[in-house]
């Protein structure tokens, strides 16, 4: 599902990932840990191909960095559900529109979009906030919108970057349960997190990013 082969990656002469290799199978649930600035978000960015590696190869589903065309990247991304660390919500759209947008780009029908978006908003306990704009939401509410958008398309893989950083214990558990349920339905989940309580309560395989390498724990 996701494979890194000796990946090197640097930005503006700064080596961020050096010789990282990893493999995540279909339907796996994997944590990505490491101290602040270790390179967790960079690894996720390489997976959704916002950046491409300097050397080595990354294979995500049927797409490989060795031969993917720029025009194919959007289609790769539609198979991924990404929860960005900084949420990346569209400021000029309501909660509903933000989540719906990810479905609209796939060409889904309005009626299906409406039904499905309402359903995932309810799952993250935000049904009543669908007409608010992002800057009218609390930090945790924004994070839950980002989560809703990531799962709305029933993706093959979920990339979750610190998805509970702004959530209280109960909301965090709810989100984890959603992710585990989706995972049980066959979706692979790769989740970067610092939350040791979560790691303990919802145990899964962990990978640690350290000095630019990925180490299985």
């Amino acid at each position, binding site marked *: 599902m996701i494979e890194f082969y000796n990946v090197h990656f640097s930005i503006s002469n700064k080596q961020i990932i050096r010789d990282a290799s990893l493999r995540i199978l279909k339907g796996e649930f994997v944590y990505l840990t490491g101290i602040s600035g270790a390179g967790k978000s960079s690894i996720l960015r390489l997976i*959704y191909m*916002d950046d491409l590696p300097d050397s080595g190869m990354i294979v995500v589903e049927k797409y490989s960095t060795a031969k993917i065309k720029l*025009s194919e990247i*959007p*289609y790769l*991304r*539609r198979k991924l559900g*990404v929860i*960005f660390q900084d949420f*990346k*919500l*569209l*400021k*000029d*759209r309501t909660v509903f529109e933000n989540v719906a*947008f*990810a479905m*609209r*780009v*796939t*060409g889904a029908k309005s009626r299906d979009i409406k039904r499905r978006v309402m359903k995932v908003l309810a799952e993250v306990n935000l049904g009543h906030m669908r007409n608010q704009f992002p800057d009218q939401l609390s930090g945790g509410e924004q994070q839950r919108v980002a989560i809703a*958008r990531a799962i709305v*398309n029933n993706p093959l893989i979920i990339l979750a970057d610190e998805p509970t950083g702004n959530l209280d214990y109960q909301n965090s558990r709810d989100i984890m349960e959603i992710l585990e349920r989706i995972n049980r339905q066959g979706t692979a989940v790769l989740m970067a997190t610092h939350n040791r309580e979560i790691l303990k309560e919802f145990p899964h395989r962990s990978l640690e990013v350290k000095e630019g390498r990925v180490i299985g724990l």
Partner: protein
Amino acid sequence: MSVWFSIQEGLRGFSRARMASVISIISLSAALFLIAFFLIVSLNMQAWIGEFRQKIEIEVFLEPYLEDVKIRALEQEIRAFPEVNVVEIISREKAARRFQEEFGRSVFEVLEDNPLPPSLVIRLRENYRNAPAVTALSAKIGRLAEVTDVVYQRELLNIIDHYLRLIYLSILGVGLLLLLIALVLIFNTIRLTIAARRDSITIMQLVGATRGMVRRPFVIEGFLQGLISALIAVGLVYLLVHLTRYFLPVVFLRWEIPAIITALGLLMGMLSSRISVNKYL
């Protein structure tokens, strides 16, 4: 499906960034109005110059005591020339009246007899109202029997020809300049509004939108802005022409001007949006 998506997104984007849209439309209208205004001025100037050239005359002096029949025969002959539009006969009596106007005294004050010759005043067809054509025609007429002299304002004609070329060149220069300024202003305005939304552009792509899906709504928005601005500019132009008519009855407007303005607005709106959004794709 995808077209409908683009149109919907374009319309929404338009109302979403309302402040920026309003500012763009104001600026675009102003720039388009500028061009329309220039087109009207140059169109009217062209008309005025045409009127002015119409007044070019060649005066053909005939034998002093030529009979009326012969004068009329000569008039017919000259009228048949392809260059000639109208021929007016200045009889000896009319010439005497002109003398009075010019010199403040009647010819008959000094003489019993009128010494002034009859003449023909020639106005030219449109394509021949310039110095070379007039010179050629004058030479041709000068060779006719019974013609004593052919007079035209050679100097004036040269000056007119010279200055009118300059005026045309100036209009062309000013026009190109204004067009350039307007294009730059329109492009810059749209570019600024799109730069303000570059975060959104990035996010849309991260969520799986293709470049076309991101670009097309912006192009449609640009189209709409161009359209609305062009309509406002055309409205202002009509208003201006209407008001100006109170002072200058000659001002007129041709249907081509609204058409040019609208086409320019649409084209620039779409093109500027396209180029600007491509910077962030």
